[in-house]
């Protein structure tokens, strides 16, 4: 097996609106296990960013520690990345977002990184409504330390050594909605037709957008009895809707608007088109979203797709009323009050 990626690209290769080819969104060659779900998610991120014509350097990717958190090396090689410490990506992202409100922030985490060691930071990132996409590559186990159950492993799921997980699994989507996340979705690494539009919609959302992606661990959690294996996920997936992101400039055709398609207008005039598969599900109603999640669970099904959306988001910068200009672009004359002000201050201490 060779680790050299061919650099040859066809001269007629497709380019997006801003002249970049897909190659410009790729990263280093993955060192994850062959067949790892995470690689499919990386590919979906590359595809989504390419299709959306995102300037690679206007996006910053952040992660914690674990197999999932390694992936930012494998996508968006022209973007700055920050592989931080275990479970702490949300706080690093918070600081980064405060420093520059103009970049796009993409956080990647795993189930251990988010639901165990990083639970505190995850919860507060949602509470503060950071303007970022937060993807959890969820495989129900700790891959990098050889397969221990994680906190999202379902109760009764059997791991590779044959042991049944005796603890309740944490449902990150339910938790996210409960905490006030305004964009909550679940997907499957093996379903790029669903995942790519979800990532695109999440990137458009002007606040915290959570996508919990079931991403099977081929090495440690793909066995019979695991509820996070490829087979189990495929068999038990149930989608809320077929999702598509309709860009701002596109005309919405009658085809799209007709039938059961529902359009949700986003802040920048683009739309999310939902071809609803669940009749009694209202994506903008928290209670309906939570009920559908719970009911699917009772049926042993994995509800995927967009689960909840509140398009009227007020992100951390709006809450803090920070200046329109990014803080990291300010200099002495914006920030230093000067000697005269200081003399007045001195006088108040005499």
């Amino acid at each position, binding site marked *: 097996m060779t680790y050299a990626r061919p650099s040859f690209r066809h001269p007629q290769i497709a380019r997006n609106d801003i002249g970049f080819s897909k190659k410009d969104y790729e990263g280093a060659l993955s060192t994850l296990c062959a067949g790892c779900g995470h690689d499919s998610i990386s590919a979906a991120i590359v595809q989504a960013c390419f299709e959306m014509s995102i300037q690679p350097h206007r996006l910053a990717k952040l992660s914690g520690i674990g197999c999932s958190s390694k992936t930012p090396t494998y996508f968006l090689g022209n973007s700055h990345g920050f592989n931080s410490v275990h479970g702490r990506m949300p706080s690093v992202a918070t600081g980064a977002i405060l420093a520059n409100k103009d970049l796009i922030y993409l956080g990647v985490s795993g189930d251990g990184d988010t639901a165990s060691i990083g639970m505190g930071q995850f919860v507060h990132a949602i509470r503060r409504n950071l303007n970022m996409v937060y993807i959890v590559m969820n495989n129900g186990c700790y891959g990098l330390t050889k397969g221990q159950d994680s906190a999202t492993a379902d109760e009764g799921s059997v791991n590779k050594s044959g042991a049944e997980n005796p603890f309740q699994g944490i449902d990150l989507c339910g938790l996210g909605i409960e905490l006030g996340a305004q964009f909550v979705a679940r997907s499957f690494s093996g379903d790029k037709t669903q995942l790519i539009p979800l990532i695109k919609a999440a990137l458009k959302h002007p606040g915290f957008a959570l996508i919990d992606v079931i991403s099977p661990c081929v090495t440690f959690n793909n066995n019979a009895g695991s509820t996070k294996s490829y087979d189990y996920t495929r068999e038990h997936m149930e989608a809320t809707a077929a999702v598509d992101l309709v860009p701002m400039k596109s005309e919405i055709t009658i085809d799209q608007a007709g039938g059961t398609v529902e359009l949700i207008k986003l802040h920048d005039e683009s739309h999310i088109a939902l071809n609803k598969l669940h009749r009694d599900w209202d994506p903008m109603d928290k209670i309906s979203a939570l009920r559908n999640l719970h009911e699917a669970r009772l049926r042993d099904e994995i509800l995927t797709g967009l689960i909840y959306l509140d398009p009227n988001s007020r992100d951390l910068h709006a809450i*803090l009323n920070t*200046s329109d200009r990014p803080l990291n672009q300010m200099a002495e004359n914006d920030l230093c009050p000067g000697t005269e002000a200081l003399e007045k201050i001195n006088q108040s201490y005499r």
Partner: protein
Amino acid sequence: MNQDIKINDLVIRFANVNGTGSASANNMFAKAVYRMGIPVTPKNIFPSNIQGLPTWYEVRVSEKGYLGRREGIDLLVAVNAQSMKGDVASVQSGGYLVYDSTKTLSDEFIREDLHYIGIPMMQLCMEHFNDPRQHLLMKNVVYVGALAALLNMEVEVFETLIREQFAKKEKLIPGNLQALHMGIDYARKHFNCPLPVRMERRDLNGNKIMTDGNNACGLGAVYAGATVGSWYPITPSTSVMNAFEKWCHKLRVDKETGKRNYAIVQAEDELAAMGMVLGACWNGARAFTATSGPGVSLMSEFLGLSYFAEIPAVLIDVQRTGPSTGMPTRTQQSDILSAAYASHGDTKHILLIPSTPTECFEMTALSFDLAERYQTAVIILIDLDLGMNDHLCDPFQWDHSKRYDRGKVMSAEELEAGKVFGRYLDVDGDGIPYRTIPGTHPTKGSFFTRGSSRDEYARYTEDGDVYARNMNRLLKKWETAATEMPEPEIVHNDPRNKFAVIYFGTSSYSAQEALDLLTEDDLNLNALRLVSFPFHAKVKEFIDQHEHVYIVEQNRDAQMRALLMQELGIEGSKLKSVLQFNGMPITAAYIHRCIVSDKSFIPQYEEVSLAKMA
């Protein structure tokens, strides 16, 4: 009893119940001493509690300008029944006890060797004010008035202070003035005013100001251009971020739009507070946090990342009494090692150690320059005493031509021009690489920041040689930093002296006074005040030229001594310790006692004493 007249040299202690409004009356008293041109140092000795427990406020008045804490209380204002017994016992023989004589003082509180001054504080308040809350608050102003008369303080100074304090609540001025005069009149009528222990106007304070270190740090951060402050509340550092917020609110809000040129986030814990600082600094803003010992423990993980991934960060550590929760409202200098070597693996962090609010302001401003120049964490080590107590100090100064040192940041133009960029490449031979800020250039200069090992171009590697090369470069960077650290203050250096004292932070006040006490004994010691780590070359030079050096510290384990030994390779036998760690600011008398009673010092001491006798 000693009735000698003693002018401008006294310690007054107020024994109050916390949550009863005594703080503002007590502050006014200290401010009045300052306004009379006499050096003064107030210290708050308070419980980890909001209401109902004993709290003390100690004011030292010193014509000689000694600003450390002094042992021996000359006058005690005892208005807390709970702590009365201990309070009475704490006054030095021949001293004065001012108490509320509304109720008769129990016999158990009578000491033969004290003067008792009963002022019917509560009774006076009940006669003149209606509201019960006012009785409680005005009682404090009554005793301040009585002290003004007893200690020969200028009434107009107090009147002016009251008018200033309530300038925005004018309704409160007449009542406060009335209470002040009730105290003055009662004391003058019933006692021989002034007492032999008294004050007289001087002009010793020049243009000095009185403020606390936490406020100065917060203001320094504003001047240094910090835009992001993240923090988790913890005594005694909370008022750092409060001050930053207060000054930002005054000085950093756009007058037209109301938009803020700053962002402050109260984090979920200290881990997150430090994570936010790193995220913001990585992304090109100036960011900082403030905490105390328990927070440093939690922040250690990120401090290690800052060191290894080379991300600027500023941390203000207001030390309190450890270990663990320790005594949260008492002072100590006991985070030296945990700050210097915070985090696992081989890590070292730059420390700045101010002694005054003026230096808190300057060093906080400097810390952002150093953090960006060396792309690493800078920790400002202060303590509860400096952070939360007012200190008489030089006014803050700012050079308007000063430009922020943003360090080696490669611009889009430089990248475009084809300048080679390797995030961890030592281009200039000083160990300091170039960095780029996210979003700089569409196709050049991006890199992946990580806490795992990587090569010069930020590519992940497990090659041991590459790892070691990087670790050595970090050491080289550290050595570069050592040459550019603020120099220690060599306070006294007479080549004839074989012994010396080294001190730092708030120990400086009492150490300087102790040196005078030693000189009175004809014991002359040289002195150096540490202000930074890595240690400047002058520190080793200074130690090398002496036979023995005393290291004065407010911790049990002689942490600074250990750091000097470890980092400068100095023999332990050469460094002796003067240690106090009971949570109270160290005193000159204590330092003096430790040094004169040290065995190694006795030969010289006896020699001198004998010479004196002859």
